[in-house]
């Protein structure tokens, strides 16, 4: 699985790099966001190794998440860097300005990210808990990589040419949205459309399924080898996948009572009607056979 994951990860980086280049049209605009994000990813994976957790299918999503979040914050820094470069002349001043202006939003959002991720710890499933620890720690490392590492690197470079600031030209759609949202009618219009979206969301939420995956089986596509084989075995040889219904009597011999046994048999018959149930086995089945044998022998 990991062999298949690595190319996916590389492909993701290539796509991001291409889009970053389209946005900034400069080498540093591609390099620094990816570098900063990758450092956090590597720290996260290193932590995984040091703490002795496995890179299970669950943990394998951490790199992608960190990459995505790291890139988002880096882009904000880079964008601001280009903006300020058009106004100032010293690389040092630009970097100081960028850090001071973006410190509040960057810190706020990264800390909330990390805390939000850390709360998964309260779901008492160990696989998720280790994920929460690693994820939140690597998220916190983004603070350093984005707010300190990138400006530090940038301060070594000469400022970009002012003619190269393609990205600071006003954008037609964004301006339209801005104008729309600062006019009474437009603002209400946007709010109403979001409200409609929320209502549709509520309808969807009510349809949401909670859980249900068996370990392994559901993690695969319906036509994956494992899934197909499990189904075939379950279909042909009922007994491979069992589900237990336990009957507990408070009194000695309570479940030996023939009325209880009859109820258990009724429940078995009832469950048999479910097309997904291949069969069932209980004490009643044995008792019936035993009774037949004993009666015949008499």
């Amino acid at each position, binding site marked *: 699985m990991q062999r298949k994951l690595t190319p996916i990860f590389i492909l993701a980086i290539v796509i991001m790099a291409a889009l970053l280049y389209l946005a900034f049209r400069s080498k540093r605009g591609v390099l620094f966001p990816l570098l900063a994000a990758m450092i956090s990813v590597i720290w996260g994976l290193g932590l995984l190794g040091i703490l002795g957790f496995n890179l299970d299918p669950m943990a394998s999503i951490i790199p992608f998440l960190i990459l995505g979040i790291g890139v988002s914050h880096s882009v904000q820094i880079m964008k601001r860097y280009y903006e300020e470069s058009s106004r100032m002349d010293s690389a040092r001043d630009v970097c100081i300005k960028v850090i001071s202006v973006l410190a509040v939003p960057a810190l706020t959002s990264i800390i909330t990210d990390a805390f939000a991720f850390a709360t998964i710890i309260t779901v008492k499933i160990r696989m998720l808990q280790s994920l929460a620890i690693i994820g939140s720690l690597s998220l916190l490392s983004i603070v350093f990589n984005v707010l300190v590492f990138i400006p530090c690197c940038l301060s070594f470079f000469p400022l970009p040419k002012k003619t190269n600031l393609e990205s600071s030209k006003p954008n037609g759609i964004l301006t339209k949205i801005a104008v729309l949202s600062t006019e009474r009618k437009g603002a209400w219009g946007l709010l109403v459309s979001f409200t409609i979206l929320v209502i549709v969301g509520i309808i969807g939420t009510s349809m949401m399924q909670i859980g249900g995956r068996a370990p392994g089986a559901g993690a695969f596509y319906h036509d994956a080898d494992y899934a197909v084989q499990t189904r075939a075995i379950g279909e042909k040889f009922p007994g491979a996948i069992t589900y237990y219904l336990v009957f507990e009597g408070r009194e000695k011999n309570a479940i030996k009572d023939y009325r209880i046994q009859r109820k258990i048999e009724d429940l078995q018959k009832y469950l048999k009607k479910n097309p*997904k149930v291949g069969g069932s086995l209980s004490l009643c089945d044995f008792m019936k056979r035993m009774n037949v044998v004993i009666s015949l022998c008499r």
Partner: protein
Amino acid sequence: MWLFPYVGNPPHGLPTSKETRRRIAEYLNLYTGGVPEEFSFIIDYDYRLTNIQVFLKDMEADTIRSVLKDTKEFIANNWETGDVSLLMGKGDGTFEKQITYKAGEWPRSVITSDFNEDNRQDMAVVNGWNNNVSILLGEGDEAFQSEVEYKVGKNPSFLCSSDFNSDGKCDLAVSNSGSGDISILLGREDGSFEAAVNYPTGEKPRFIVSSDFNGDHKSDIAVVNERSNSLSIHLGKGDGTFSEAKEYETEEQPRFIASGDFNGDGKIDLAVSHWVGYLIAFYINEGEGSFRREEDYWIACNLNFLTSSDFNGDGRMDMVFSKYGESSVSVMMGKKEVGGEARVKVLGEEVGEEEFRGAELEWMQVTEVHPFFEKPIDYKVGMEPRYSITSDFNKDGWQDLAVVNNITNDISILLGNGDGTFQSAVTYEVGNSPNFLCPTDFSGDGKPDIAVVNEGYGAVKVHVAGGLAGVVGAINEELRSGMVSNITQISLIVFLCCALMLRSLVGAFIVLVSLFTRVIVTYGVMGFIPIPLTMYTTPIASMGIGIGVDYVIYVLIRIQEELALSKNHDIQEATIKALNTTGKAVFYTVMAVVLGVMVFVLSPLKFQMELGSMIALIIFLNGLGAIALMAPIVYLIKPKFIFKKNVDINKI
């Protein structure tokens, strides 16, 4: 074949938490730390547990859910957990059709008395699974006030009433078979009770009676302990407390006690029937609350129950018992003159006392002549009679007999002829698996009524978990409960962080609004696609809630900044600027990350594809909210933290 699959270690190396395992174990009423010996088989030696193994064709979510649903449906519709039937007497020995009242889970016994002294009969029902006694105060005319429950020990079985603290109010004593103690509930004037005080007795106490054994006019208690094979006498001190129990050995598995003066010396004696012991043991009162055992009555059969009463009005105690497997009750009359040598038959042949005392032939011995009682006469009733009571149902002055039949689900009324014989039984239908009954007069018309406790199937509880599928069920339950608290926690953290960093509650509130919008839309999309909320998608959903506010914060702070820089403080100008700078960066990011993460669609694992699309969706919604939701909210609310003039943006 019926070995437990696993309780300590789930299969497939599934790293479920200790808490999840505890839940699974709790489903099965086990606790982790190894499988206790008696649970190593699904069917244990005393047939307390059994199971159905349901064989599923696949392990898809829907399959497990549908089996669970079917089972719950069946149990809800077919697994009656017990109730109480009332039969109103017409005064001529016949009864109206039963009226049923809901009881707790596994009702086991009932007594009636006037607890609140309003001259109407009230009812106390013992609920075995709920570990409580419910009190129903009668309002006359078959109506009861809503029940009040009083906690007692574990798995209470029987109860008796008396005035233990000499205040003239009715008190209750309950035997708790699960916790090996008796609970004393002291009554108050209004029919309510003080909290239970427990006194230890033997193991698995069962039938309990109260009377004055030592002649000090204070109520004492006698209880049989089925597992420790003993009879415990708790002598009352008259203030509601009891001295340490005195124990008397019994035969194996004593079940019922009948009290009365059997030998005619004026003191209350006790008779104990056994399930395995095959005899009725007499404990003769020596005064001072001590007893000696003598004159056993051999029956050579398991005994269902034992009660005593005076049927022929000769002042001598008579006795009713029932043999297991026979649809009849045996009534034996007390002898007018106590005495005579006991004679016993072994395998149908009469033997002398020396011979049967020494022989180990207990189960074959039958008492032929007994010093206290005449030979028993059998009367036909329903199948497996469980208990009997006496009362004058037809008001002819003679005691009649009512027997509850567990298998035929009815009660048999045997009207007394006054000479110790009875007319043949008339039956009345009651509820499912009736177990106990008591005489009463709820309607207050002087015509005796009967209250019957129907156990139903309450004695057996169904647990729907176990097996591989059960583990999945437990995880899902954990997720379900974790989800709501997770969202609450994250919202709280986001709110606190933002309020602190933005120094504005309104600002934090705006961020929270955008957060909830996205949570709902994200879950909505998950519902529509559908992507189920599982172990795999939960962290992403949580993460999504967290990262969802990133861009929003950037945009908010940029609007604040631009507004401060703007010369004529124009919100529109500031918004245009903010969206064209920070907003544009958000737009780039969304493009880069969404398309980058979308490559997960190529993953060979289904859940990774789901995860990839979820992250993409969350980031997209985040960007959308930042660009199109923040500005209108800011414009409409005009929060102070953005509109205050001369913000020093370098002050951090």
